[in-house]
């Protein structure tokens, strides 16, 4: 039993850490966030050159063949730097679906493009009414000749503003919340009939609402088996939750470290505020929240690596902890920074905002606890 990283994993981690150290200062990040696209195309090319975009993909398509641990070490570093580039949306979500459901041909078409930095992807699954329920799909894809016609709307699509290629969940059978009857389609984001409304989210990323009006899809736009997309989506979402948790852990660590440093420097009543025992004990509590989250992350990753075990329960638990511990850590970080934590020019609140978006993604702690309970008390 060990929790050590392999040599390759250490190199991967250090390479991301170095990039953030050298090229991704908080000020540099602010400029990217304020740009039109909210991301740097140049950095994206760097990601490709450094091989990061290849990490989870199979070697046959130019991937690195990495596993959950490799993804974890990268995402944790991305979290520390609050990296804006759509790694999560393109590689983890969009790429994850491709990898899991795509035909050999589809994989051969899209994965190399992702790896080379020539494809920005997005997964469109949320609808106005669906909240966190993946099976709540009203968007329809009706058969039309060999292909399909897509009608409906998706909202708050991550990287929806910049994506050139979309994977869309649509109903090809069943009723509104049925798990059966959902299919995935891969299509050009500029296809005729797609109306895109873009906006920024509080964490700096660019999302979009997408309206599909009679969008014609060829037969080979179908990704995976017709009507059977739900298990695939669920699985990729579970894996994506672990990646998000790693990013969240990176953020929590930064918040704790920066708060600790601040309390050691900031003087009030003639002494550093870090010398007040009440604050010390509270920082011990946030330290423990961090460590406990890390432990559940490791637990989930280890279970994911064992192919014969169902990771769902561990991952739901992780998402619950990420909510509770993340809220605890970001609240204390802002509170202990005093007025400074409330200013937009400091990084503290930006970390907090990203942490909250991570929390909301695929369901908050309460949502996952209900799922955890459903598995525990069936």
């Amino acid at each position, binding site marked *: 039993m060990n929790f050590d990283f392999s040599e390759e994993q250490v190199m991967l981690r250090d390479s991301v850490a170095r990039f953030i150290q050298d090229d991704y200062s908080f000020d540099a990040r602010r400029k990217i966030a304020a740009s039109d696209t909210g991301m740097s195309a140049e950095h994206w090319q760097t990601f490709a050159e450094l091989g990061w975009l290849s990490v989870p993909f199979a070697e046959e398509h130019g991937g690195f063949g990495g596993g959950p641990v490799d993804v974890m070490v990268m995402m944790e570093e991305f979290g520390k730097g609050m990296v804006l580039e759509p790694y999560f949306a393109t590689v983890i979500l969009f790429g994850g679906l491709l990898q899991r459901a795509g035909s050999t041909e589809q994989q051969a078409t899209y994965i190399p493009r992702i790896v080379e930095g020539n494809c920005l992807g997005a997964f469109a699954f949320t609808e106005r009414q669906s909240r966190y*329920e993946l099976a709540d799909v009203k968007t329809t894809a009706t058969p039309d000749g060999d292909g399909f016609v897509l009608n409906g709307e998706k*909202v708050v699509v991550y990287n929806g503003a910049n994506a050139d290629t979309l994977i869309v969940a649509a109903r090809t059978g069943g009723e509104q919340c049925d798990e059966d009857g959902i299919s995935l389609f891969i299509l050009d984001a500029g296809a005729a009939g797609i109306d895109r409304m873009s906006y920024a989210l509080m964490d700096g990323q660019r999302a979009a609402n997408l309206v599909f009006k009679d969008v014609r899809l060829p037969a080979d736009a179908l990704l995976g088996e017709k009507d059977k997309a739900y298990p695939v989506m669920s699985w990729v979402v579970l894996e994506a939750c672990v990646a998000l948790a790693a990013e969240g852990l990176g953020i929590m660590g930064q918040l704790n470290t920066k708060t600790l440093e601040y309390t050691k420097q*900031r003087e009030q009543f003639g002494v550093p505020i870090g010398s007040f025992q009440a604050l010390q004990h509270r920082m011990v509590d946030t330290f423990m929240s961090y460590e406990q989250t890390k432990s559940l992350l490791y637990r989930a990753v280890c279970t994911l690596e064992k192919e014969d075990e169902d990771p769902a329960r561990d991952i739901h638990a992780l998402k619950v902890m990420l909510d509770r511990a993340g809220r605890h850590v970001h609240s204390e970080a802002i509170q202990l920074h005093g007025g400074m*934590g409330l*200013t937009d020019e400091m990084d503290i609140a930006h970390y907090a905002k990203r942490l909250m978006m991570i929390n909301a993604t695929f369901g908050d702690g*309460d949502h996952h606890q209900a799922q955890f309970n459903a598995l525990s008390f069936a």
Partner: protein
Amino acid sequence: MDTSFAPEDMAFRDEVRAFFADAYDDELRARLQHPTEYREAIIDWQRRLYDKGWIAPGWPKEYGGAEWTPTQNFIYETERAAAGVRDVIPFGLKMVGPVIYTFGNDEQKARFLPRILRSEDWWCQGYSEPGAGSDLAALKTRADLDGDAYVVNGAKIWTTYAQHSDWIFCLVRTSNEGKKQQGISFLLIDMASEGVKVNPITTIDNHHSLNEVEFNNVRVPVANLIGEQDKGWTYAKALLAHERTSIAGVADSRRALAELRRFAEQEVNAGKRKIDDPLFQKRLSDIEIELMALEYTDLRVLASVAAGGAPGAESSLLKIKGTEIQQAIQGLRMDLAGYYQGVLPTDLDPQALGHEFGSSARQAYMYGRAATIYGGSNEVQKNIIAKAVLGL
């Protein structure tokens, strides 16, 4: 023990309701939300209160106040929050006004009070400094006497609405002798004076209401000194106690909770309304039960003030619990907004966006972080209770 209202209080309540229904109309509500019109709209609203005689309920009648009973005050605040009516800007009416009529000279009273009542001057508060947060008395902004004026140098921070203000009331250091609380003076400074510079601070709710105010050799006539030189700390402390009487914010939290309920009736997951989700119900009722208690804690303090007691460390309790409840409501509202909590305000139609309260949930949550920090952080409030109530 008796918590029923007297008939005259019931009549007053009806009058308040009728006034709000009439004077706080939809057109005014719309203007108050507008990014550029809101300053004038606030002044309009405050003038209506002035015309009604309700602009300064706590002031003595001789200075134009209403001298309400604590019960009337309570009724007014309850109705105000229930009707979603915004409070007056406090800096002139609730903060510097009482200091001027209590500690100022006749000339100062005549000069400043009527203009405050008529909302002709906007005031802001110059207490906190970049180097001194909760440790207010550690302030460094200097005022050196030079002939008939003080020359002020230094900076104040977290100054709400400084960008709109005509005047700022400041604590400044006039002496370095003795304890740090001594040697502080209370100065009124014209924001149009040469050497005053306002630097905006954007806060995490992506708004600009806070500022840093710099003073570079600003000359302030000695006529603008309140009371005696070096005694300003005493005046400021008296003001702080005054400020905390309605600090619990019970009525506003009650309204926020009712809103939350409405949202939870609309929000649906897998066909189930959030309002019917037992875990959501628990979180909501956890907050409501604390609020039901705080309402009576507030009334108990109110009753003791009405009976001639002074609101002491109890106001610290009201502040701590009140802000904890506010933040709990804001947190729950964020969760309710789901993915939409992250949406920044845009010119996009909320209908097109698909959600009506996501962005306001974010703003309330972010802005709400300040409540436990400003006006004496909750940590400082705990120190006050430990010392004053527990004798530690």
